[in-house]
């Protein structure tokens, strides 16, 4: 097993929050736990326990939950513990100081990504899986997410590149054999060239298919428009459930454009709040209104908010300014104080968030604008870039007549695949050669 000191790092941001988590991995985990909790964890694999953590001077640092994972049944394959401190950055800093003061040799802050590396080195995860974790965390589209999860949980063999990797090793083996073992078997250069073209066209197909799937639209953009003070920002906040916009009684305080993403039952939305429209606008508001107008071309659906004070002419100005055609819903606000007699959607600020979602029919709107929402993908973004690099060889190889040059370039491709799947050595190639062809006298 790979060994190189014990490492630690926070795995939640170091900000005020209910908890701040730390992970420690390496040979010294039990030793460290013993020192800071005065308890022996060696028999407590994967049990959550509430324990007291003491500083060097025996004063209490925190009372918190701790889990110990015994090697090799842990994320990194080493001894690991996870500690959930109360979420104060000050406690976190005391905790880090404590670890330093322990003077455990080799104990250090983990480098970026080091836990994943260790998991790779100790065979807990493959290189691809580690990369998949990374993509999952930073992933913004559901289609990619599903694929990366599959890579992570089921392994490399589910990578869409695997068939290509197999194909290229086979191809290279055949090329190798056709050169080194001419008198052992009958090889056909044209056949080989055909297989090479096939390989590149397979690369191309896979790439095209997935590029469209990954780049396909998966987000629905909605915008709130309406006169000043109609309740746009109030609705915006309700939907995103965060104190993001400023809601006041003074007309026109939503000065610039605000947007936020949110997800309801796997549907992604981006919502835009706008400055209100009124006859006399301040400079900044005017700017905000203009900006909203500009973005409006990228908006799928508008929620046009009105109340009893809204004039017909205001509404038609809005439709004109934002180029709204059929893609809108008319919403009457403040139904708690106004009594509407129309069939329009009526809301007010006392509605629960979920009721608002329902009233606004967000899911059916999503369905209307975002089609084929999860096309399955067989590659992630990194792999797409990889394939693009491989395809750069296509012209040179396909147009080449000298098998030796072809072999050289194909070896380069093999080396590139090594970067994805781990090193493919000549011995691996010979394994393939000797199992596919009858070589030797």
């Amino acid at each position, binding site marked *: 097993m790979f060994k190189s000191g014990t490492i630690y790092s926070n795995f939640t941001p170091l900000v005020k929050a209910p908890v701040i988590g730390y992970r420690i991995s390496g040979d010294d985990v039990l030793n460290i736990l013993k020192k800071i909790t005065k308890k022996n964890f060696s028999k407590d694999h994967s049990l959550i326990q509430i324990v007291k953590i003491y500083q060097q001077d025996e004063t209490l640092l925190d009372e918190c939950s701790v889990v110990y994972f015994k090697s090799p049944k842990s994320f990194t394959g080493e001894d690991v513990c996870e500690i959930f401190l109360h979420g104060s950055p000050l406690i976190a800093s005391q905790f880090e100081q404590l670890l330093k003061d322990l003077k455990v040799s080799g104990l250090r802050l983990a480098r970026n990504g080091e836990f994943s590396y260790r998991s790779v080195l100790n065979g807990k995860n493959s290189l691809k899986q580690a990369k998949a974790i990374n993509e999952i965390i930073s992933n913004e589209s559901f289609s990619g997410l599903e694929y990366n999860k599959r890579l992570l949980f089921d392994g490399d063999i589910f990578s869409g590149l695997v068939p290509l990797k197999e194909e290229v090793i086979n191809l290279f083996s055949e090329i190798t054999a056709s050169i080194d073992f001419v008198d052992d078997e009958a090889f056909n250069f044209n056949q080989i060239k055909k297989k090479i073209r096939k390989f590149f066209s397979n690369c191309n197909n896979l790439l095209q298919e997935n590029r469209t799937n990954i780049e396909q639209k998966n987000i629905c953009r909605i915008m709130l428009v309406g006169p000043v003070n109609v309740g746009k920002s109030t609705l915006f906040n309700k939907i995103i459930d965060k104190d993001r916009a400023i809601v006041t009684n003074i007309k026109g305080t939503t000065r610039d454009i605000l947007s936020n993403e949110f997800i309801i039952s796997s549907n992604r939305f981006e919502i835009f709040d706008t400055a209100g429209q009124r006859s006399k606008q301040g400079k900044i508001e005017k700017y905000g209104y203009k900006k909203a107008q500009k973005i409006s071309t990228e908006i799928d659906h508008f929620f046009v908010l009105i109340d009893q004070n809204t004039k017909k002419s205001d509404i038609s100005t809005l439709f004109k300014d934002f180029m709204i055609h059929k893609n809108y819903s008319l919403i009457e606000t403040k139904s708690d104080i106004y009594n509407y007699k129309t069939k329009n959607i009526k809301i007010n600020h006392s509605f629960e968030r979920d009721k608002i979602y329902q009233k606004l029919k967000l899911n059916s709107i999503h369905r209307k604008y975002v089609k084929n929402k999860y096309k399955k993908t067989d590659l992630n973004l990194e792999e797409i870039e990889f394939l693009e690099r491989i395809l750069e060889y296509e012209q040179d190889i396909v147009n080449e007549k000298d098998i030796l040059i072809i072999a050289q370039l194909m070896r380069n491709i093999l080396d590139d695949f090594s970067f994805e799947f*781990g090193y493919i050595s000549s011995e691996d190639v010979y394994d393939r050669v000797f199992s596919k062809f009858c070589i030797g006298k």
Partner: protein
Amino acid sequence: MFHVEHYDVVVIGAGHAGIEAANISDKYGLKTALITKNYSDLGKLSCNPSIGGVGKTHIASEVDILGGVICKIGDKSAIHYRVLNLSKGPAVWGVRAQIDRDLYSQNMKKFIKSSKIDLIEDEAINIIEKNNKIVGVELSNIGIIKSKAVILTTGTFLNGKIYFGNESQEAGRIGNSSSKALAKFINKNFKTMRLKTGTPPRIYAKSINYDVLEPQISENNGIFLSYFTKQNTNIKINCFITKTNNKTHKIIRDNLDRSAMYSGIIKSQGVRYCPSIEDKITKFGDRNGHNIFLEPEGLNSDLVYPNGISNSLDKKIQLKFLRSIKGLEECEVNQFGYAVEYDSVDPRELKNNFETKKIENFFLAGQINGTTGYEEAAGQGIYAAIHAAIKIKKIKFNEKVFERDNSYIGVLVDDLTKLGVTEPYRMFTSRAENRLKLRTDNSYERFSTVINPKSFNKLEYSLISKNINNEKKIFDRLTQLKYSPNDLMKKNIKVKKDGKVRNGFEVLKFLDPSTDKFKKFFNLTITQKLLTKIYFDSKYDVFYEREKKSYDQLNKNKNMKLTNIDFNKIPSLSKEILEKLNKHKPENLHDAGKISGITPSALFQIVKHKKTKGNKVA
């Protein structure tokens, strides 16, 4: 003969490794003894009567240009030539010569006798060392002879044991006793392993019905094993091709329990390829048939070597399956096929000059290092002896010629000493990263800095210098000629309109490599041989450059500090390699390259990573 003198070099074993070692040691002016068990075995071709082929020719040609004898004597004794891969680039042309077995031995004997080498017929039974430094060798009859260096090249003889079916006997090969006393010393001092190989039966020529078989006629395209051979006047023989068939396959399959290799009697490390007919039938039994090349053993020999049916079956079964084959229905066997199992040393016991790490001035070369093949043995013999000479005479020598990027011998040495072997090691051109450069037609160029005039007679040496001068003249003329894209357009050559002025050498790759075209285009006369060479130099130039850049990068970065690098962050390194790097913690790239098991591609990847910070993971 008296053998009480103090030798510079004693070579044990007069096989292909031993002969080359003794010869070059002598050529370097060292007092040399060559010890062999049987005088009659000198340079014996233990297995197939042929030299060369793809990969093997490549090593042999390097031995040739270093002053070795295998190619020259091979050509003298050749009775049939073929060039494999002729339709591909010359980097992989593999000339293969059928050798008259007796002629080869006779020529070899004549050669050794004419040299200053002391040929001693005796059995080496012990190696004498003091304080981990060589003192000499103990021979069974003569006793101890002293020497500054000893090169051991005993092939398959250490604890050799041969098998026919369930029958076995101790022997280095048929007719030769195995070397047990010496094996004791080797096993005590070095890590060894048990390997195996095999040989087919020998058939009486008169018992073969050639009329029904397809002949293979010797080719005559002026390509020989040796750089120095101008012609071969021997009578040429035909080889013949036949095939195994379903009946053959059934006989073999039904009797696998009577094969030494398959019944479990032989337990030593097998190989991934198919050296025996048992393997072929087991792994590829569904084929229509496996080719057998019937190769006459010599002009005056009444024996034929059926290439392709090595086996260790019971003698009766051998006869039965042979007689199921077309043309062999009434064949009579002179010598049955057998498998041989022997001790070989883990080549990682060797430093990269082939001296053992444990005993100074004790060198090992040939099949004893886990290889197979005459050419592979010859390459090691010459390599070990050159390094013995370098050590004893403190010669200044450009070691770069033996790096992987410059020679197949370098590839072989590097593979053996760094990676070790798990099966008998055979050379393939695909083992060389720099294959386009490592050609037989330019070995004189690759080794030019170390060509030793003393290793050649006057005629040979002047041939080398004459050729080098000729080439230089043409090359200089070519590089003086300048062509703009427009000039080339006018001459019907399509190049990019990049405004780049190209010299004649750079333009050469756009032409057909015919001497007429060359004459017409450049107004220069050239031989076809030289044209072919420089044409491919021109064509492969970009690739040399590319490879050279990566090798230069390695060389240039030899001192690259690795102390602050985290190897674990280089995703493409294999786990084994990582473990080694983490264990040895090399200071710099140079030291990393010296760790056993570290491949050049691993080094490239370290450099690449260090330069680009590599792929980022999580």
